[in-house]
């Protein structure tokens, strides 16, 4: 009987812990939103974060986008050719990127490149008492540090996803047209005809906005919540990347189900 009790309580413990943490995260999100006005009224604070989270991620996003697009073209050409539809390669590349791979892969890269950095920076600021010092100077660290980082991430993410898709399409063009010799005109015109602005492009942008929101919140929360020790910050950084990846993939499924159901 006691064994059963222990088992149940051992199952329950992580659940309650998770619920408590979710509650903290929700209240934290509210606090960020409440202090966002102060942060956004001073755009140079958010611009600085866009520089660190966004601009410095451009290189990895551009290079990865290019390679993903090239691989898509190689794989797609191989399959499409069997059905004599190789000229539709442009459609395949563009739709895959704009609808799915752009937002999702850019989101995953963003979480590991920028999200981890945000968590580590906030965690270290906490461990070295910089956040406490700010509080004692009557400056709210959520308004001064957290909210700008959050909005910097939210703003950067859709732009990075768009860059990723654009580079991917360019990569597909390089392989499809330049290497495999598809007709350039039909590559672009078929793509233009098949990609719908609202259904495909806008839905991709909406996805990347959701991902940017989720990753930024996870990153700032894990940093703010990290125990102020070396081990605490390393765990928090890992957790940012892992949680972000899972949340992006789960969100992607849910959003896709809503957006493209029965189309």
């Amino acid at each position, binding site marked *: 009987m006691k064994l059963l009790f222990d088992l149940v309580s051992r199952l329950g413990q992580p659940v309650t812990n998770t619920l408590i943490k979710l509650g903290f995260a929700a209240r934290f999100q509210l606090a960020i939103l409440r202090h966002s006005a102060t942060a956004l009224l001073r755009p140079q604070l958010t611009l600085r974060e866009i520089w660190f989270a966004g601009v410095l991620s451009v290189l990895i996003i551009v290079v990865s986008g290019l390679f993903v697009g090239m691989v898509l073209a190689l794989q797609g050409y191989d399959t499409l050719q069997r059905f004599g539809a190789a000229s539709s390669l442009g459609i395949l590349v563009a739709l895959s990127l704009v609808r799915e791979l752009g937002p999702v892969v850019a989101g995953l890269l963003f979480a590991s490149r920028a999200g981890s950095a945000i968590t580590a920076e906030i965690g270290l600021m906490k461990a*070295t008492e*910089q956040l*406490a*010092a700010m*509080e004692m*100077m*009557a*400056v709210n660290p959520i308004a*001064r540090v957290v909210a700008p980082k959050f909005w910097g991430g939210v703003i950067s993410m859709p732009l990075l996803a768009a860059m990723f898709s654009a580079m991917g399409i360019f990569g597909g063009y390089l392989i499809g047209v330049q290497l495999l010799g598809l007709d350039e005109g039909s590559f672009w015109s078929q793509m233009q005809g098949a990609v719908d602005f609202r259904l495909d492009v806008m839905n991709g942008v909406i996805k990347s906005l959701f991902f940017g929101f989720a990753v930024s919140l996870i990153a700032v929360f894990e940093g703010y919540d990290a125990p102020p020790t070396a081990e605490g910050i390393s765990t928090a950084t890992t957790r940012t990347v892992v949680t972000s990846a899972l949340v992006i993939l789960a969100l992607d499924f849910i959003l896709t189900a809503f957006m493209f159901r029965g189309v």
Partner: protein
Amino acid sequence: MPLIEFENVSFAYDDTPILRDVSLQIEAGQLVAIMGGSGSGKTTLLKLIGGQLRAQHGRVLVDGIEVSRLNEGELYQLRRKLGMLFQFGALFTDLSVFDNVAFPLRERTQLPESMIRDLVLMKLQAVGLRGTADWMPQALSGGMARRVALARAIALDPQVMLYDEPFTGLDPISLATVGQLIRELNDALGTASIVVTHDVAESLAIVDYVYFLDQGQLVAQGTPAAVRTSTHPFVQQFINAQPDGPLPFHKPAPPYAQALGVQA
């Protein structure tokens, strides 16, 4: 009226009591040391003044205002009267020395940039580090970082200064420099200053009054001269650095022989 007043203050984390029935008063212009071993509740005492923690019993008054009753906005208002020096300085590592000292001025005043520049240079001059204005905090030694943090803490001429272990990890020269600065700034600004420390020699040399804190209770107090001649066993142990005394060398534990599994 005292600037800082504790009236029978008690504080506990969960079930662990940290402070028990602490009462003390600090006037403007007074420099007071709170001494005690590690874990005696010294830092908690500072956090109660700054409102980072709230007293569960008793009252903490800063300039006549009860800290634990304030909401967030009022608390931030109150903190404008406080300056705090953190143990390792807590300088913002992404800002230069100049920008660190300018931070409270830029965040909390509407002063024009030219005036902020003058003020920052004056504060840095006061701690002797005007020459490092363009440095990044990583380039500073421990003692210099502490002095820059001091310049930042006094940027807005606070009425109350709180020092959390200001002497920890400093070489003898830096230690004496920081000690002297604390005394001089206190006298020049007329602040009420609290130095939380376990550095006996340095603090007895600079402060006006000393409180001894042991396991959350004030066990002794007096002027440095009185403390030096005190026969109180705890004070004796503390200022003569004896390993054993009222503050035991051994943490309470089951009998030694029993723990080792042998017959006594």
